Structures are given as structure tokens and as C-alpha cells.
């Protein structure tokens, strides 16, 4: 009789652990998905801003066809990207293309005086920063999920219920370099 109780107690405890562990996975996975959709919101905002930028810039930059085209192309590529790695790569391309567009714009004083252009530039810079912010939040959540999937004993639950690791959203350039303030001297 006592043995039966011990056995029953064991089953109950094990069951509770499986349930708690499973719920933990669901929570982490949902968080990662939510974080991904946060990135998506920012990416969409950037896609929406680019056509406006091209329209504004077109009139001033007749000689920069290639630069403008590369931005448009990078945008189309980024919008059609499938996997996380693909998305990251194409977003990095888009960021670079925009960077060179803004670099080129330095030599057009008329454009630099255009209110609309300045506003768009500010918006795009802000969106860029927000993409980085949401990317890091996403990576934090993915890290938590991946750690739990790999560590013992929760890896058993992950195996049974088929929870899979998610990919990190990687940034091309060195994060530290992006953080260090750029010294400007005149």
C-alpha cells in the first residue's frame, strides 16, 4: 500500500514537472515569435519609407541612378526574404544601400536643404535604430529558448514535444564598432 502511494506521488510530481516544463517552452516560443513580429513591424516601416525617399531624391539626383536602383533592388529582395538568415542578410544589404545613398546626398546642397528629405532621413535613422533594438530583444528571447532546449533535463521535454531551436538575427558589422562614438574633428 505504501509503495503504491510512493509510486503515485512520483507519477504526480513527474507529471507536474512535464506540464511546467512544457508550459515554459510554450512561453519562450511565444515570446520569440512576438519579438520576431516586433522586428517585422519596424522592417515594414522601413519598406514604406523608402519609396517616399526615392521620390523625394529623384528630382535632385539625376546622376545617381545606380545608387537609387540598388536601394530599390535591396528593398525588393528584403521584402521577399524567407528564412531568418536570409532576412538578416538582405536587411544588411538594404542598410548598406541606404548608407551609400545618404553619403552621396552629401554632395547635393539643394537636397540637403529639403525639409522633406531631412524628415525622411531622420525617420529612417530612427527606424534603423529601432530595428537594431528589436533585433536584440529577439535575440535575447531566442537565446533563452535555445538554452532551455539544449540544457538537461528540459531537453527531454523539447525532444518529446519537438521544440526546435530558432535562428539568431545576426548583424553584419561588429556590434562594438557600432556602439563606440565616432570622433569628429574639424
Amino acid at each position: 500500500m505504501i509503495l503504491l502511494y510512493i509510486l503515485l506521488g512520483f507519477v504526480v510530481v513527474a507529471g507536474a514537472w512535464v506540464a511546467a516544463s512544457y508550459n515554459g517552452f510554450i512561453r519562450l516560443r511565444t515570446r520569440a515569435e512576438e519579438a520576431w513580429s516586433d522586428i517585422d513591424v519596424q522592417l515594414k516601416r522601413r519598406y514604406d519609407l523608402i519609396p517616399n525617399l526615392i521620390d523625394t531624391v529623384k528630382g535632385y539626383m539625376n546622376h545617381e541612378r545606380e545608387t537609387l536602383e540598388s536601394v530599390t533592388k535591396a528593398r525588393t529582395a528584403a521584402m521577399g526574404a524567407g528564412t531568418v538568415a536570409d532576412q538578416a542578410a538582405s536587411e544588411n544589404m538594404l542598410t548598406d544601400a541606404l548608407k551609400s545613398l545618404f553619403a552621396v546626398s552629401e554632395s547635393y546642397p539643394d537636397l540637403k536643404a529639403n525639409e522633406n528629405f531631412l524628415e525622411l532621413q531622420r525617420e529612417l535613422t530612427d527606424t534603423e535604430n529601432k530595428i537594431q533594438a528589436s533585433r536584440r530583444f529577439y535575440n535575447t528571447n531566442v537565446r533563452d529558448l535555445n538554452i532551455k532546449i539544449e540544457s538537461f533535463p528540459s531537453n527531454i521535454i523539447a525532444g518529446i514535444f519537438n521544440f526546435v531551436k530558432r535562428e539568431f538575427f545576426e548583424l553584419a558589422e561588429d556590434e562594438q564598432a557600432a556602439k563606440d562614438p565616432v570622433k569628429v574633428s574639424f
Partner: protein
Amino acid sequence: MAANLYKNQSENIIKTWALMSVFFVLVIFLGLFASHYFGNPSIFYIAIAISLLMNVFSYWNSASLVLKISGAKPALKEEYYDLYTLTENLSITAGLPMPKLYVIKESVPNAFATGRNKEHGVVAVTTGLLEILEKNELEGVIAHELAHIGNRDILLQTVVVVLVGLVTMLGDFFLRATFFGGGNRDNKAGGYLLIIGIILMILSPIIATIIQLMISRKREFLADSTGALITRYPEGLASALEKISGFSSGKKMEKANHATAHMFFASPFGDHGKKHKSFMNKLFATHPPTEQRIAKLRGQRVE
């Protein structure tokens, strides 16, 4: 790499809980002693109820109260574009809703966070802070404040204040009752027990306050390391601390107030730059010494 940061963070959480446990034990002992002495356990429960009510009210209204005391004005996106977007971005990274942002006209650089939960988070900075800090230093400070919100420090602080209030009230009540002859004295409490009781009652509010401040200092360290984890750049916060202590050493904020001192980023009384090494000062400080905070941040640089 960042392992130190995580270790520091979990260490701090454990220490905070340990301190809280000491607190609860103290309250329970006091309550038991009081009810034993008077032979009436209801005293304990009444004290708890009053103290809870008082503090739930202040917890609920703390944000608007503090903002009013410090004379803070809402920061608009148009006016404080950099501050606003930077806070927005850091909240995204931290996974918190965007807090309400306020600016205080005050030349002494400082900041604080309040709000009863993360949905009602409030971050306020002084204009002095915006003037002297570079962008990545400001990011460090804001991340520290967001860490306070994310770590539920305002709730914790309220719980601690409730407990301190409770201990103080019990001590007070007991002393009065003893001296003015309430309670049935023939009940078990002999002479030596009475003396121990009186000493305990006098000391316990002091002990409670010391524990409260210890928790406050622990939470500052925790917010420093969580903040560094959000920005991934502890140096920003470290150099902000350096600048702030260098700038405002000896300068007291115009609206510095003991009731709100623990909420600020750096002590508003300008005593953080001083080499106050006296034991008493350290024991009753709301914030850990700035040099120590900087040293901890630099020791855990993410590289």
C-alpha cells in the same frame, strides 16, 4: 563574455531575497513576541492591516506624487527627439512598454524611475543630465532606469516600506503599552523578558531601516548590471556615473527630499562624490558608493 553580467544579476537577486527573508523573520518574531506578551494575537493582524492599507495607497499614487514633488514636465517627442527615441529604442530592447517620459528643470544631473508596474512606468531626467551626457552615456542611465521598472523595484521598495512601517509601529505600540501599563502583565512575561522586549523594540525600527537601505543599495547594483545588459555597453553607464559624481559632488538638488532619495539614479544630496568612508554613512546611504558602482561596471565589461 557576458557571463559575468548574468552572474552578477542572479547574485543580486539572490541577495535581495535573502535580505527580504531576514525582514520577514524579524517581523514574525516581533509579532509573536508582542502577541505572546499581551496574550492577544489580534494586535499583530491589526498592525499588518493598517500598515498595508497606508502603503497600498502610496504605492498606487507614488508616480504622480513624486512627479509633483520634483516638478517634472512631460517630455514631448518634438522637443526632446533624441531622448524620446533613445528611450523608445531601449524599451524595445528591454521588452518593456514605452514609459512616460518627464523632464525636470534642474541643473544637477540626475534621473529617476517610478510607476507601480511596467505598464505605468515613468522615467524622469533633469535638464542638467541632458546637458552633460553624451548619447551612449544617456543610454546607460535610461537603461538603468528601465531596469528598475523591469526588475519591479518599485513594488519591492513598497513591500519593504510596508515592513519597515510595520516593525516601527509594533515597536512603538509595544513601548507605549509597556510604559503606560496596558496589557496583562502577569501573563508569562517576567522581568528579563520585558527588558529583552524593550531592547528589541527599540532596536528593531533601526535594524529595519538599515535592511531597507541595504535592499535599496542592492537594487541599485542590480539595475546597473541589468542596464548594462540592455545596452551591452557598461562603459556608457560607468562614464555617466563618473561625470555625474564629478559634476554634482557637494551640490544638492533643489528639490532633494529624503522620502524620494532612494528613487534617483544617484543620491540627490550630492554626497556620492565624497570619500565618505565612515561606517555610519555607508550604513544609512540609499545608494552604494559611486566608485564601487563604476568599478563593478568596468569589471564586467562586455568584450
